[in-house]
């Protein structure tokens, strides 16, 4: 067992577990996108970053791939973490504005403007579908093609391969396909629709954990 401290709480965890797993076990919520408990950790979206404090220095690490270490000190919701997470969501929104998952996250984190040029790629390249296809369906029918901004998920030579059993798992697990934002008209890369159409829930006791996102006040941080 390894002893570590997350958000000021001392805890023990078996060697080999990740900080995200330990935090989730403790009831601490760290937002994730490319992580799924049934799939291997990938560390691509960087939404689950946490602050690792060591001596007088701190660094940001993706908690889904960060193994626990003795005497590790982790902050999951420090100012630095919140600032970085917001910027990452802002970047993701500018490349894939039509995902409800992302729009909800943006609303929860109090993002009220996307300052970057919106280039809708329709995909956040989280790799959930690729890993689901390979690891759960044992198929490997889809994979990544290309590099940098031309990277995309595709079948080999863009032909439906024999391995594909049409299970639809790739669509099911996709944070963009499955949960597309249907509001249609985006303002500054944000839809704002959900905030108005869905009843806004408010925490019984407001601790100011998230910034105000509209006239209705805070949303429950899910």
């Amino acid at each position, binding site marked *: 067992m390894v002893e570590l401290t997350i958000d000021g709480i001392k805890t023990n965890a078996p060697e080999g577990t990740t900080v995200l797993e330990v935090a989730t076990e403790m009831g601490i919520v760290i937002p994730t996108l490319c992580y799924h408990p049934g799939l291997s950790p990938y560390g*691509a979206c960087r939404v689950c970053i946490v602050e690792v404090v060591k001596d007088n220095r701190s660094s940001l690490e993706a908690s889904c791939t960060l*193994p626990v270490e003795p005497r590790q000190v982790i902050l999951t919701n420090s100012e630095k973490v919140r600032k970085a997470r917001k910027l990452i969501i802002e970047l993701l929104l500018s490349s894939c504005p039509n995902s409800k998952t992302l729009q909800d996250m943006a609303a929860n984190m109090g993002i009220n403007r996307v300052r970057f040029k919106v280039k809708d790629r329709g995909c956040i390249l989280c790799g959930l579908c690729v890993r689901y296809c390979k690891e759960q369906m044992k198929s490997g029918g889809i994979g990544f093609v290309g590099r*940098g901004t031309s990277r995309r998920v595709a079948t080999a030579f863009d032909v439906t391969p024999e391995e594909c059993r049409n299970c639809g798992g790739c669509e099911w697990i996709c944070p963009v396909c499955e949960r597309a934002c249907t509001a249609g008209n985006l303002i500054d890369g944000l839809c704002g629709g959900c905030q108005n159409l869905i009843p806004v829930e408010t925490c019984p006791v407001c601790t100011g954990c998230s910034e105000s996102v509209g006239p209705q006040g805070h949303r429950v941080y899910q």
Partner: protein
Amino acid sequence: MKKLRTPVELRQLRATILSQRDPEKACISICCGTGCRAYGAEDVAKALKNQIRRQGLSKQVQLKVTGCHGFCEHGPLLVVYPGRIFYQRVTPNDAAEIISETVLNGNIVDRLLYVDPTSGEKTHFEGDVPFYKRQRRLIFGSNGLIDPTDIKDYFAIDGYSAVSKVLFEMQPEEAIAEIRKSGLRGRGGGGFPAATKWESCRKAPSFDGTRYVICNADEGDPGAYMDRSLLEGNPHSVIEGMIIGAYAIGSHNGYVYVRHEYPLAVTNLSIALEQAREYGLLGQDILGSGFDFDIKISRGGGAFICGESTALMASLEGKIGEPRPKHIHTVVSGLNGRPSNLNNVETWANVPLIINRGADWYSEIGTEGSKGTKIFSLVGKINNTGLIEVPMGITLREIIYDIGGGIPNDRRFKAVQTGGPSGGCIPESLIDLPVDFDKLTEAGSMMGSGGMIVMDEDTCMVDIARYFVKFLTEESCGKCVPCREGLDRMLDILTDITEGRGKEEDIELLEELGWIIKETSLCALGGTAPNPVLSTIRYFRDEYEAHIRGKRCPAGVCKALITFIINEEKCTGCGVCARECPQGAISGKKKEPYNINQEKCIKCGVCRDNCKFEAITVS
């Protein structure tokens, strides 16, 4: 060919080779490195060979085709031994004269000598050329002495004696201790202590005992070619370093991951590996010591990211070359899940030197935290383009003015970009900065693999930052969000600024983006990618502001922000500009000042380049 079975046989072989060679015999060492080849060195070599044959001098004169000598600006280069007479910019037509005059009669061919541009003095000998004089060419100096395709040349300069010393006189731990004492740090960019890496790899558990030793020759920085030249010119020094490393670590399998775009390096390395095997220096029971080790070549497909350790190993395994999180280091679990030790070409080439001459001697060179010498490729707006090897701690001023010969056309030095695309720009105010790992990092740049791009006053720093970010955007693997999307948005903003669409908040946004890319990227490519932008903002903020607020480019580079104007007083009305203009934008009457039609002008600058009276200016 008989395999060498003992260290004594190696010594005997060396003695035999040396006894067959007369140090007073005339020898022409011609540089056929990639730079000189581009200048036509192969034709010169062919012409020299023909001349030697035609004049019946095959017995008296030896022609040695070697790897890069370093002074690429003045190629093709050759040195005539035993006197070390140095000729530059040699053409095939000079071959006959070199043989008949210099080699046979000892006369110097005046027109082929190097002329110092500042003093106007002619230099006769290689060692007197200012470019070489200030260097300390411990590793690179051997390039001129050996034909990379002939292992005997390497034996002649004490080659493989370090391997024999390590295998028979040292325990693996002693070899690691020697490297630790020397203070050798990785030359590939990170500057990680080599001995620490070796030791971690040696101690890391491997379930079947397999450990790998890998040489990183995936050099991809724009303008950098020192690893290429070392592999092309002296592949045995790298192989020897790897054998020593493998013995120290306890590995029997080695790989050289080399770019497919370096065909000459691949060829020369393959030949060298084959020859080393023939002599029993690779394979089973090296020199009869009982130690087995062999090296395979793996050719990279030209992805910049594959220079990163985890991406390189993924590529070696046949997977997509993209990095993985490095919480478990590659020395513990790397290639095929086994402990793997990756070092750069130059690091490996340093190893035999340290073993042969001792850690104490080596650690006297350099500064407190950075020992030994470093090879830099000095390129850009500099008189003496080439590869230089200097002791750590030398100042930028010495590199640029004493070795590099200053800036061409009397322009002013503005900045030097070190460390490849992820390095930073160091301004003129820091020109006396000693060059070592720590000082460069403090200045917001890095040592990197050793690229050095010199810029003069005609270079726009915003445009430079845009160029490097564009390179990195294309080379990012695209796995993690900050690097893929962040760099792409950074490029958008920089393009906007250089095209006159910059907004007041852009600098702040660039700094914020730089922070997030640095802090949260998955690998070191993203972790250092914003350096060109952040360092130019740090040192040249005024240029960014001029672009954004004043909509002007102070260096006159960004096309959207400049106009070409004809100075009426200087224009003689010769009409050259009008003839050369591809757009037909310039008109006028002979012997009267001409005019540029700004609507037609595409700002290509052809008119300015062709005007003999400097009448065309940029505003």
